[in-house]
């Protein structure tokens, strides 16, 4: 065995990775550094190349072009069993012919460790399932299998733990619980986690850093708050939560702010939230940042007037309004229900206002619909 590769530690570095299958390019000139000890998420819709990227890190696929380094060791072409990297597979892939104990001990035994009892029992306690040691995988529930798959990987104390949609097969409630648990376990064991998911909420809940992938490329990388508040592309703005994107143009500056004109109405936005390349922009505002007011109510900040309430949906924590603007675009507004009743009715003439700092600007030549209509996730995507 290549012990030099197996003992490698440090940041994971992908350099200009491309993976093609015939004419199809799954991953396109991707470069990425994942710092040691972080909880990193690769987020994207089905077929965006995130699983292929993960499989290349695991060694189950070889990149067509590019290199992968772990610390200073080049692991681009080393075999999966020569890498200090373990994977929690999408459908867990527990060995059906072995007991839970032997499943977990599998990696330790293959590395020639004789006395596995202590390590296995310790990790079984960590996932709170010590009583299942002698069962077979088929006798476990989905949530239990998920934890055993995690235990089987972390017992090896890999330099890197890869999670391939690990919560995809669980129901919503269990998924939320496991999200918190995974985050806790990552802190507890201090390993680098790389998590692949199509669920933006899951990525935001767990990861320190998220890389949003689309069509084999990384659209944007950053902390969850950074991506949400300051998206660089329409895809990120729409894939992470919802956005209202309004066509307009930049017309001037005002100190640290830029002034934009949206269908004849002037607004301002922070200079550092503009990703425009010329004067043509899409101004972006998250639905919960908008406030609605009746025409006679005085408002501050940015204002778009001439709206008419088209639709009202009361959903408990908030009320969602569709507001038709004079230029024929429907804007989405989420209002907290903190004052009791929904005060606006369908047909009300209203103004929409918001704090200028909540505005971001995207390039005007973008597809404003990018990332909104994502193909339903196929869980068996390879």
């Amino acid at each position, binding site marked *: *065995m290549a012990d030099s590769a197996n003992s490698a530690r440090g940041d994971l570095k992908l350099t200009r990775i491309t993976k093609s299958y015939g004419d199809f390019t799954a991953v396109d000139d991707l470069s990425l550094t994942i710092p040691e000890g972080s909880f990193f998420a690769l987020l994207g819709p089905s077929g965006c190349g995130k699983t292929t990227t993960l499989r290349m890190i695991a060694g189950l696929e070889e990149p067509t072009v590019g290199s992968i380094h772990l610390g200073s060791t080049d692991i681009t072409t080393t075999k*999966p069993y020569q890498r200090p990297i373990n994977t929690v597979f999408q459908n867990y892939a527990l*060995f059906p012919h072995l007991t839970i104990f032997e499943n977990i001990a599998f990696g330790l035994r293959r590395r020639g460790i004789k006395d596995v009892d202590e390590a296995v029992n310790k990790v079984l306690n960590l996932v709170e399932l010590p009583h299942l040691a002698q069962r077979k995988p088929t006798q476990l529930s989905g949530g239990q299998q998920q934890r055993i798959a995690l235990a089987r990987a972390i017992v090896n104390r890999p330099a890197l733990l890869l999670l391939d949609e690990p919560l995809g097969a669980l129901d919503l409630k269990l998924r939320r619980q496991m999200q918190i648990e995974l985050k806790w376990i990552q802190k507890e064991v201090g390993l680098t986690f790389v998590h692949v998911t199509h669920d933006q909420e899951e990525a935001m809940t767990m990861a320190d850093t998220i890389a949003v992938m689309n069509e084999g490329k990384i659209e944007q990388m950053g902390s969850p708050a950074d991506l949400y508040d300051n998206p660089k592309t329409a895809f990120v703005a729409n894939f992470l939560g919802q956005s209202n994107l309004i066509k307009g143009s930049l017309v001037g500056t005002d100190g640290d702010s830029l002034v934009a004109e949206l269908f004849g109405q002037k607004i301002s936005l922070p200079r550092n939230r503009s990703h425009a390349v010329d004067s043509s922009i899409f101004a972006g505002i998250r639905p919960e940042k908008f406030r609605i007011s009746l025409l006679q109510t005085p408002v501050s900040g940015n204002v778009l007037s001439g709206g008419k309430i088209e639709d009202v949906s009361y959903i408990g924590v908030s009320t969602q309004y569709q507001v038709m603007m004079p230029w024929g675009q429907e804007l989405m507004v989420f209002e907290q229900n903190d004052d009791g009743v929904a005060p606006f009715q369908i047909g009300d003439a209203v103004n929409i206002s918001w704090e200028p700092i909540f505005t971001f600007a995207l390039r005007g030549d973008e597809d404003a619909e990018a990332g909104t209509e994502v193909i339903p996730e196929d869980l068996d995507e390879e």
Partner: protein
Amino acid sequence: MTVKQKDASIPTLPLGAQISRWIGRNLIRIYMVFAFTYLFIPVAYTFAFSFNDSGKSNLIWKGFTFDNWMNPCGAPEVCSALGNSIKIGLLATIFSTILGTMIAFAIGRYAFKGRSASNLLIFLPMATPEIVLGASLLSLFLVFQISPGFWPTVLAHVVFCVSFVVVTVKARIASLDPRLEQAAMDLYANEFQTFRRVTLPLVAPGIAAAALLAFSLSFDDFIITNFNSGTVTTFPKFVYVSAARGIPAQANVIGSAMFFLALALVIVGQVVSRKRKVS
């Protein structure tokens, strides 16, 4: 009492309707009884006549005896024929299982030139009429100046058993989740360890089923054996030859014993797998 009163309050259907309703409800059971009767009458007949105090010919019931069961090798050549069949069966099973499993892995797992052709060709011995296969094999042996006998028979049996082994094992390989092998590799098992620790144990039930099938096909074979065995007598050949002058009751004893052995194996297998599921 209350039950009876209730019955009285329900209007009774005419008898014809009642009968057709009963038949409708029990049709599948009736059908099952007929099907199993049809299947098992020959077996029951064989078993019953293994107790016939028959003397030379076992065609007419002459009285009940345990003698045949106490002395299964009593009739001349029965046990040497049985011994030959078992020997040939075991050898053919071993060779065809090893060869067939390797072919199944090659076809099921690897992309190579001529893979779909091999996939098709492997079916040919199954599709070829036995009489043709037997005759061709004989002429082939004669061309190579190999005289018919024990080993040519083993070789001939391997030829047709291999196809069945390949088909059986391949089905098992196809149902194997490739992610299990990937998981093994991910957990520091090299190619050989992955095969030994994960692939082989998971395919093993398929291989065992294939071996049982190969043995029973070989043990049972008459046509191909008759062409290629020369002076060596197998159990089916013995039964065929003695049919002319009367099959001894010992043949029924051995036939019945084989049946009950197979039945016992199936029952044990069922019980074991059910226990595994429960525990």
